[in-house]
């Protein structure tokens, strides 16, 4: 086995992880990202790490380019062609507004109305042709568009999930007008009903495809120039990998690449440490991402909103984001109640103590004022040697004066409020899905996560917190643990009583074959393939379906039984006599990569860890002489007690008074309430 490297290209930093044998962690580092050409930041990271690409078996990669292109609206110049009468579906959405209160703001569709076109054709909901495709008109339209500088043409017809024939024929006609176009048809991207959501997903795919394909080409060329001839695999939002060569065609599948990688790494690390069910908390500068992993499997969301009226109906790891991060600003609302976030000081001006012109106190300032962050060794900052503590204290003092609190009390109040916001979201995430948060371990990571994990754990009532060895670059590590993964969905929307086992089995078999073909086409080295099936089911009339895992050979009756059991778990009752329907069928095909298993070395007898020193850190109303540990000193079997601060190059971890911690065989820190 040769070396592997995982590289996560984020908006601010590009993180790298390198292992010479696929098992040990030999190098981690952060370099600034290069948004103008993100592939350059990736190469920079490789260079900075001094990695010889010829010694690498595989490069694994996570990226935010797709997310940023959608949020900042700098994707392709695209045209949309729809069924006559429905070109505005993309912009209309389904009657909503940005937020519950406040009527300002508009929709900003990825394809403006002047580039949305219609053609005569119509299917019914069973896939019967009502109006044949007007091929002549379509050819005329395609010819006209060829002169308009379009890069992508997206075709989305009503009911194409039931019968994609018109979309497929339309693609032939449109592609014939211009070789260079990327042509996307909605039934290829989502085989499900809900015209707005399917069209939006196809448009996201088309909007990103040229950009992502270009990125893949640039990166391939740069790696080839360095002599790298093996596989590069990219993390998708569902936690599975896809080869660089297939990336353009799956552009919509990589929008939450980085966060998904973090969850995958956390699941892997926690699983090795003996925790199958975890909550992951990833806190960075502006946001806190929380996800749930049950029995080793991350929870998947069927649909995710990328922006207002930009839904993406692709199975993705269900990562909830709230605006709570190190840069979140503390302020008083008009009623005088302390608020933290969602406003953020961002990277610029940033927290007051970063000395870049920030004037409003942030969570990071509170951590600095309370001694939790080492002001003499700022992480990830090159422009200053020391945090501006006096400025942070002054900003917090001004806020505290309005609350009638002293500086430290105010700083502690800021942390309490932000911790509660994160704890609430963490709790809601599990409760929403019918889980008791106390049955989970908490894995915290990201630059700021380990500073706050102890408080979240205490507030939610979680027993164990796991701090992985490299929390600040966990997403890069996550890229390395993934397998190839393809999700295939198809709408059925029929009562179970109207379906026979043969119809269900035929759909599942067809999905399996298509998935397996994609694994083969990827050309990636795969150990074995795995096929999983699920059905989304509901009582007739319900809008919200439940996902039920099924086997390919199950009878419809058995599926109903599994649905009712799941329903009872979720809602506490079933509805006897109500008819049950299958909304859709889902097949996941996984190509498992060859990965050497990490064997836990025997755990030495417990020995007390030795701190590098002590400093005063504020906890619950007073200063405490607190042990400061260097993460590099902490070896397997060591134990220590809170209060404690653990410092390392990529983050700082906090252990509260009354907590105990031990270092496991994989060098994770496991913290518990005493």
């Amino acid at each position, binding site marked *: 086995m040769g070396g592997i490297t995982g590289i996560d290209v984020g908006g601010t930093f590009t993180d790298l992880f390198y292992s010479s044998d696929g098992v040990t962690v030999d190098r981690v580092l952060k370099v600034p990202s290069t948004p103008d050409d993100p592939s350059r930041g990736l190469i920079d990271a490789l260079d900075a790490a001094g990695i010889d690409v010829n010694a690498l078996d595989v490069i694994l990669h996570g990226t935010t380019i797709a997310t940023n292109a959608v949020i900042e609206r700098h994707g392709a110049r695209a045209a949309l062609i729809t069924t006559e009468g429905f070109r505005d579906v993309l912009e209309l959405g389904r009657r909503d*507004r940005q937020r519950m209160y406040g009527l300002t703001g508009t929709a900003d569709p990825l394809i403006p109305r002047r580039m949305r076109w219609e053609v005569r054709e119509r299917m019914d909901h069973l896939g019967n042709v009502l109006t044949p495709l007007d091929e002549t008109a379509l050819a005329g339209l395609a010819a006209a568009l060829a002169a308009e500088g379009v890069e992508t043409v997206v075709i989305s017809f009503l009911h194409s999930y039931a019968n994609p024939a018109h979309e497929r024929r339309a693609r032939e006609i449109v592609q014939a007008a211009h070789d260079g176009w990327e042509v996307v048809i909605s039934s290829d991207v989502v085989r499900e009903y809900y015209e707005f959501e399917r069209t939006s997903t196809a448009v996201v795919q088309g909007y990103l495809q040229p950009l992502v394909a270009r990125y893949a080409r640039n990166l391939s060329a740069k790696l080839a120039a360095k002599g790298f001839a093996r596989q590069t695999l990219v993390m998708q939002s569902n936690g599975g990998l896809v080869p660089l060569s297939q990336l353009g065609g799956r552009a919509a599948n990589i929008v939450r690449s980085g966060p998904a990688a973090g969850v995958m790494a956390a699941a892997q690390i926690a699983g090795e440490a003996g925790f199958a069910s975890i909550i992951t908390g990833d806190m960075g500068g502006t946001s806190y991402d929380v996800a749930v992993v049950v029995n080793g499997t991350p929870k998947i969301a069927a649909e995710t909103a990328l922006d207002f009226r930009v839904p993406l109906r692709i199975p993705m790891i269900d990562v909830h984001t709230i605006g709570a991060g190190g840069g979140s600003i503390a302020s008083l609302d008009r009623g005088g109640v302390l608020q933290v976030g969602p406003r953020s000081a961002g990277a610029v001006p940033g927290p007051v103590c970063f000395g870049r012109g920030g004037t409003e106190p942030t969570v990071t300032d509170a951590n600095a004022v309370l001694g939790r962050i080492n002001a003499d060794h700022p992480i990830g900052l090159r422009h200053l040697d020391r945090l501006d503590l006096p400025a942070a204290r002054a900003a917090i003092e001004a806020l505290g004066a309005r609350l009638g609190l002293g500086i430290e009390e105010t700083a502690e109040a800021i942390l309490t409020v932000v911790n509660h916001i994160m704890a609430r979201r963490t709790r809601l995430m599990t409760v929403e899905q019918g889980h008791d948060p106390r049955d989970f371990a908490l894995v915290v990571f990201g630059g700021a996560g380990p500073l706050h994990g102890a408080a979240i754990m205490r507030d939610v009532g979680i027993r164990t917190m796991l701090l992985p060895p490299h929390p600040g670059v966990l997403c890069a590590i996550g890229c390395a643990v993934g397998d190839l993964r393809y999700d295939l969905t198809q709408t059925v929307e029929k009562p179970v009583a109207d379906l026979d086992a043969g119809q269900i089995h035929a759909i599942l078999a067809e999905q399996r074959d298509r998935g397996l073909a994609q694994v083969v086409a990827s050309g990636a080295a795969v150990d074995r393939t795995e096929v999983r099936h699920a059905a989304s089911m509901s009582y007739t009339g319900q809008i919200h379906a439940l996902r039920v895992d099924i086997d390919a050979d199950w009878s419809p009756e058995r599926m109903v039984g599994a649905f009712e059991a799941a329903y009872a778990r979720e809602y506490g009752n079933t509805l006897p006599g109500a008819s049950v329907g299958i909304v859709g069928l889902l097949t996941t095909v996984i190509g498992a990569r060859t990965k050497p298993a990490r064997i836990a070395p025997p755990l030495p007898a417990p020995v007390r860890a030795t701190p590098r020193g002590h400093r005063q850190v504020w906890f619950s109303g007073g200063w405490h002489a607190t042990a400061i540990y260097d993460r590099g000193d902490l070896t397997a079997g060591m134990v220590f007690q809170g209060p404690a601060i653990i410092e390392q190059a990529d983050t700082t971890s906090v252990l509260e008074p009354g907590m105990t911690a031990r270092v496991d065989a994989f060098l994770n820190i496991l913290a518990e309430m005493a």
Partner: protein
Amino acid sequence: MDGAKGQGIDPVTLAVVRGALEQIGDEMDLHLIRAALSPIISETNDCAHGLYDPVTGETIAQGGLGLPMFLANMQFTVQAMIPMVAAAGGFRPGDVWITNDPYLSGTHLNDVVLISPHFVDGKLFCLFANTGHWMDMGGSVPGGWVPTAREIHQEGIIIPPMKLVDQGQRNEGVVSLITANVRLPEQLLGDLAAMINVFALGRRGLDALIARYGTQTLRACIDEMMARSEAEMRAYIADIPDGTYVLEDGFDNDGVVDAPLKVRLAISIAGSDLHFDFTGTDGPAVGPMNISAGTTKSLCFVALKHVFPDVPVNGGAFRPARFTIPEGSILAARYPVAVGGTTDVTQRVVDCVFGALAQAAPQAAPAAPFGTTGVATVSGRHPVTGRYFVAVYPYPGGYGGSYATDGLVNGTPPGSMAKFMSVEMSEHRYPVRFDYLKIRENSSGPGQHRGGCGTAYGIRTLSGAVVSILGDRVDTPPFGIEGGGPAAPNHVAFHTAGKDWIPPMRSKAEKVPFSNGDAFFLASPGGGGFGHPFNRDAQAVEDDLNDGLITQDTAETVYGAIIASRREVFGRLVFAIDAERTRANRTVLTSA
């Protein structure tokens, strides 16, 4: 020291408790939305959950996912119920009370309210309440929107305030009396069970909070939260210049008598006090265009919250306002008038508040949104399954332009968060086919920030069915503010029995018989414009023109644009506007 005037409550506990109470409401909302059978609840969040003071009935906290419409309505319902329950012996643990009496609980018969007490150590601590929209409550038209109803009994059955669950024991006699009188009894049973189950979830959350802080601290926090919300609302009101601001608007007709109905609102600001005076409003309507006084008040708060979205929702935020609503007017309905037009009457209340406030605070209040919920109901027996169906298509429409931005297209009513059903889903469920669903061109109110366009859709039935429509805003379009123009009014058309026709009441039609292939065509209003159209950026006018949102004539005459060139792409014109000449032209037109 503006943050520390509480009675010794530490600011951290206060912030945490407020968040935790709101979360209980959120979790209850979420649970019902996911468990409900009624698509109106599950798809359109037509529900609400809250915690209320057991003595004053004031809102302690409310879920953030339910409909704005119920913002204050729930509080008024709880306040009305408290003395009734007291007279009947008071709340006991495990009780659930029910009502849908719209004169008491507001909105319409389909909105059913449940109230359940929460006891701590044998003492009543607070009340939980929820509202859920049930698909059908009987009455002469499926779904409950009866455009020609003259009295409440044509709209469905009234459930007077009564104990539905007595110390954990559900009164099955009451339940069967209800289910026997509605069209979709199975669905109703599912929704009822879900609504009752949600209380257990709320109790668990509140008990956990009580275990942590104790009832005394919690009580003190609640009082303080209300005081803070009141202070916050007062701070915003005090920013509005003192004075009286009057707006008159109205309705096309009431669906029975074809005469306009006037709504008159005078908002008076004096310091941090606000007075809503609806004196001069017509009524009662003979048809269903009436709402209860509680609903009127609630929608005034909804409008205020849209203008000042940051104020936390609890009873304190409602304290600075006073109301004068003439008894028996269309905005203070009394038994037995029909109230099914609530979906439109509530919209006009919001329009009036925006219009009056815009005179004093144009930077905060937007121009009028589309102003009609125009509910189209299609019902009948499905030709394949033989089962009875009720499909409901409420209008989307444009929002008004504002100081900040253009208006949104395809918005949901300000009092709602309800979505429009997917076309493909509709065609799966019901024997209908959409001809089109599109932006209604040239329908936005012109302005520096124009209104959002209306939405147009045409639906054909594939079997025999009956179609009812209950809307408004045909005769009086949504208004603009600060020199912005009005939007296009509502338009309703039918094609049945081979003929195209417009309903005599223009915006309302009841139980029109449809055969296979018959169709109706709706075009909802846009939103009014903000600011004079001549102040609109020339590039924005060019984009609107090339997007087909306005015509060349509108660009030239209303926006004063000078077109530099035009070309054609596959039958569509692409224009370029000359910004320089447009500026000059506008100057000439303004001084002329």
